[in-house]
């Protein structure tokens, strides 16, 4: 594994490209979500109209105060101008700035998604590589059956059963991120709460990663250069770690990039079931309250996480695969 290579200039160009792409995507997503929100029949203040003692004039006043009486392109322009300063508008349902609400949650989602993915990769890659190397029929069959079981179990059921286990056994906390007595600074307490949702996410990712790891390693083992290395008398351990795994890394890293979207979606389900205070419960509450600013904020935050994940994937690919570092037409 070399460094990021290709010179500082190449890395800077890559970073600039990623930043540009992320900005463009966020702009696109915000515009689409904002425009969609305008076609929505009904809005946040509809329920206020039904409240006794609320006059039509009072509701109109509230709408004017939040600028809801203006045409939507004007409002989008204003929102964009605010967003440039990190102000994502007010959340009507929470009566607080969206930016701070989202900022509270985005780290929690990142923590859960990263732990879930990390756990899945740490288990699935060595296990898959092992299944590919030791092609004993019995081991391969046991692995295949275990993987088939995890594959057949629906993600939702896995999460529900884990929660049921926690509720019945009392061994691990079944919901939330902190115990009522503890505050957020107690790391051990947060980690205990993290275990079950992270395992739920990891179990859903596991089969795909395992299958890719196994096939990538098995395929590389059949490559001519491995045969040549074997013929030169390279010992098996060195063969695996020095020759096969680096060559098999590319498809696995690419797989990570392709599963980021589902990772965040899986994390949303786990967050809802385990009441983990991430972006998932936030966007669901925003959706049922029709709080368009908050929905927009949560979607943007999830898009930002996804784009960050894909940027990390690109950097990891550059580090792991010399072919990608090579500038077009030049030599490494």
């Amino acid at each position, binding site marked *: 594994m070399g460094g990021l290579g290709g010179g500082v200039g190449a890395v800077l160009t890559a970073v600039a490209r990623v930043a540009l792409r992320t900005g463009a995507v966020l702009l696109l997503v915000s515009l689409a979500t904002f425009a969609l929100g305008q076609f929505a029949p009904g809005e946040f203040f509809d329920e206020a109209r039904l409240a006794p003692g609320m006059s039509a004039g009072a509701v109109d006043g509230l709408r004017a105060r939040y600028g809801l009486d203006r045409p939507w392109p004007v409002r989008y322009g204003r929102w964009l101008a605010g967003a440039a300063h990190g102000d994502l508008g007010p959340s009507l349902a929470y009566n607080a700035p969206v930016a701070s609400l989202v900022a509270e949650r985005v780290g929690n989602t990142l923590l859960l998604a990263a732990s879930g993915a990390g756990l899945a990769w740490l288990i699935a890659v060595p296990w898959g590589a092992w299944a590919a190397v030791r092609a004993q029929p019995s081991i391969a069959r046991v692995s295949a059956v275990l993987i088939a079981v995890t594959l057949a179990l629906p993600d939702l*059921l896995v999460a529900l059963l884990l929660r049921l286990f926690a509720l019945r056994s009392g061994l691990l906390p079944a919901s939330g991120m902190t115990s009522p007595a503890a505050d957020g600074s107690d790391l051990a307490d947060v980690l205990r709460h993290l275990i079950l949702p992270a395992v739920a996410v990891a179990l859903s990712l596991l089969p795909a990663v395992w299958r890719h790891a196994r096939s990538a390693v098995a395929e590389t083992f059949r490559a001519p250069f491995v045969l040549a290395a074997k013929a030169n008398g390279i010992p098996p351990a060195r063969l695996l770690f020095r020759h096969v795994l680096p060559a098999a890394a590319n498809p696995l890293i690419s797989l990570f990039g392709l599963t980021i979207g589902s990772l965040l*979606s899986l994390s949303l389900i786990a967050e809802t079931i385990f009441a983990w205070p991430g972006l998932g419960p936030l966007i669901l509450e925003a959706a049922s309250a029709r709080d368009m600013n908050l929905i927009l904020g949560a979607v943007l935050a999830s898009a930002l996480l996804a784009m960050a994940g894909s940027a990390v994937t690109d950097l990891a690919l550059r580090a792991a695969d010399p072919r990608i570092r090579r500038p077009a037409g030049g030599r490494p």
Partner: protein
Amino acid sequence: MKARWALILLYVAALAPGFFAPYDPEEQHRDSVFMPPSVAPVRLFVEGPEYLVAGVAPGRLHLAAFDRPAFPLGTDGLGRDQLSRLLHGAQISLYTGLLAALITLAIGAVTGVLAGYFGGWMDGVIMRLTEVFQVLPWLYLLIAVRAALPLHVDPAEAFALTTALIGVIGWARPARMIRGVALGAREKDFVEAARGFGAGEWYILRRHILPQAYGVARTQAALLIPQYILAEVALSFLGLGVAEPVPSLGAMLAPLREYHVMASYWWMFAPSLALIPLSIIVDKSK
């Protein structure tokens, strides 16, 4: 091959869940709330509550009915028969999966062929869009779009909405694969020959390029259907898909979010078990 017939049979059976269901899925047995599973002697092929076949034709004949009230999979919090709801819910979920996959493949085929065959700026724009759609978390997008639509809609609309949303969100992967096929097909000799005979662009697209995408489309469908059934389950579980009183697999699991339901009434897990053979059958037919 066997698996494919099983799947076709399943889809035909799912057209008339009312025939297999002993009760109306919305009938509330108010004196039997949260009843554990029970059985009773059955009579076969009897007249019962009316139902619709394929959503249009009325029928009254049921496969079986119980001599006295019995609920093989228990009842839910409103005293509704879980088995009957499960059968009707499976219909919704299966057809959501199938129709959404068809929508995805239609969008994917059009965009993929356009990008692969014409190339140029169209290829650039479409491919950048697919990259974005592949990276973004689909469930967040789905919720955001769903939130923009009316929350309380009638069941048929909710079904159509859910299906269309799921179908549109997933277009990127098939589009990329079909683009690859079109890119290769463009260079084939018979395409060149057809062009030499004076065939127009649309004729070539329709007769020579699209048919080659058929194989990719079929394997993609086999992947998309189970994936979309599970997407529908997730959406309805979160309360944003097909809504009460119409049953769907996800909506039936939603009560499990409450502690007392999960801890006390184990038969409420029954719908999730139905997902297992479902995903295995659909998975094997690839």
